């Protein structure tokens, strides 16, 4: 082993059930900066890890509300103030006609916020991460189930973490060390 400090530790588990049990034990052992990696989302994992519900809805909701109002007012402003033009004798402020575009703008910006908000909350794109030091980790998008603990965790110490992961059934344990 070279002298570089490890940036975390990675352990592999057999299947989703084992990964969930591991998550529960890590949560109970008061680890915080750990994550459970799997090829697909596992039902019940949030509770096992002690994760709170995503806050994305609180970001998208206000955006939807603001954009619907903005769309409506914008249509009113262009039709009544900026470019008043009588067409087929209709009133300038034909508010029933403004619903569609206001709705479309609400949906459009909410969707943008959902995608980009999700990426922001996940801190993506991020092309460099300690877990990628492991070659074995490439299985995560195929059939691999992994637990990673980052060295930033307050409780983290190389040997303790290793022993703990062994005790909860982790296999192929490796320290995440930049060896390029």
């Amino acid at each position: 082993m070279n002298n570089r400090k490890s940036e975390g530790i990675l352990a592999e588990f057999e299947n989703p059930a084992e990964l969930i049990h591991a998550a529960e034990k890590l949560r109970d052992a008061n680890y915080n900066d750990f994550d459970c990696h799997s090829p697909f989302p596992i039902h019940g994992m949030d509770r096992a890890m002690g994760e709170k519900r995503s806050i994305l809805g609180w970001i998208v909701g206000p955006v939807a509300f603001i954009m619907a109002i903005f769309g409506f007012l914008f249509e009113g402003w262009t039709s009544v103030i900026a470019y008043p033009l009588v067409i087929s004798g209709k009133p300038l402020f034909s508010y029933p006609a403004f619903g569609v575009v206001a709705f479309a703008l609400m949906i459009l910006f909410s969707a943008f916020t959902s995608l980009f908000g999700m990426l922001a909350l996940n801190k993506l794109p991020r092309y460099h991460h300690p877990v990628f030091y492991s070659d074995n980790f490439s299985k995560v998008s195929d059939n691999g189930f992994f637990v990673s603990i980052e060295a930033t965790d307050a409780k983290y110490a190389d040997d303790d973490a290793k022993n703990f992961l062994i005790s909860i059934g982790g296999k192929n344990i490796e320290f995440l060390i930049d060896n390029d």
Partner: protein
Amino acid sequence: MRVCGVSVKDTTTLLLDEEPLITGNQTFSSITEKISGIVEGETNKIWFILLGLTSSLALMFFGSMGFLFWEGVGIWGVNNPVGWGWSIVNFVFWVGIGHAGTLISAILFIFRQKWRTSINRFAEAMTLFAVVCALIFPGIHVGRIWIAYYMFPLPNQMAMWPNFRSPLLWDVFAVGTYFAVSLMFWYTGLIPDLATLRDRAKTRFRKMILAIFALGWRGGNKQWKNYEFAYLLLAALSTPLVLSVHSVVSADFASAVIPGWHTTIFPPYFVAGAIFSGFAMVMTLAIIARKVYKLEHIITVNHLEKMTKIIMLTGMMVGYAYAIEFFVAWYSGNVFESFTFVNRAFGPYAWAYWIMVSCNVIIPQLFWFKKIRTSVPIMFVISILVNIGMWFERFVITVSSLANDFLPSSWDYYSPTVWDISLLIGSFGLFFSLFLLFIRFLPMISIAEVKGVLPQADPHYYEITKNRSRDE
């Protein structure tokens, strides 16, 4: 132990003995292997031949557009009074095709229909490509393409703003939003699968490109948590959107005073028709794809049968709308309305009307028979007939109403020119070229989502199998 009055043992038996969605005893890696294999393997010879054919047609599409811009819309068969010809027919047709993709990806997701996972990815891709074709037609229909940007509310030196009271402008926003949201939804679904391809990439260049688009996805649950929420939100946003888009398209017609257009049934009728035609297109593509790439275990006959049921249901809705239109035309006592509908069925466009009725109302009734619902060749033929019928529906609505409106002295018969035909066929070329490129370079089935519906993805599965082997 008993939960909700059922012993846990019973429910576990149910869970295990339920007929699996994905057949052939697949494992996580066999799914990865199967679907990524299509993208990573050698290019099929048939693929080259097909792409050659479709891209030639796409080239014809662009060539015809070039001539259209040079010469003007006079090259089309549009006349006075039929100012809306095939262009608008094609627009409505292509938007409609797109709807099934969103229905599968969004509405079936919200209803927790797990069978959608085998078909949602390429149905979404189909939506995107159909909407691309759809957006082109009204764009080129404006005649002076170089001022098409007038449709967008851009500040300009003329201090001019678009007319937000016009349904045609609503279309710009509705269909534009539809495209953007579908693209985002599709890409969101692709992120974990791009990570799969990235992790399997053999060459450095391939890995780099895929890594860029996979955004550094690590599949950690802290990411999945937000990801799943975003997916849910996008589905929840797409659901009202997809229902609104074709309603807005129908408002192009319904808000005009032309007899045969000016009815309130149009929005639901158009939406049902859109889902009907879209599902037929998904079915056509799915049948070809599963045959060529041997995906029978992932897109099973069970999946196809479920689609035939939706086609039959929406076909009956469309048939009901045709009947109600006739009833209301008679019941309204309006002579112009009554005349329009009698004229549709027995006038100069009767041939188109009866093609529409036979393909959309009569032929899908064959799906009442289980034998036909499970016969792949027959459903393939029916799916194509449905799309022919749905194209004719838009033709009948657009052209027959305009050709014979209020004043007999202004009546005229509409016939397409060679340019109308080349643009329609060309748009199919573009659609299929994009689709072929998609199935060659991107996973056409959602790898992560299909894994998620395998029985072994459920953490309880391991407990149950363990208990079961102990009992035995």
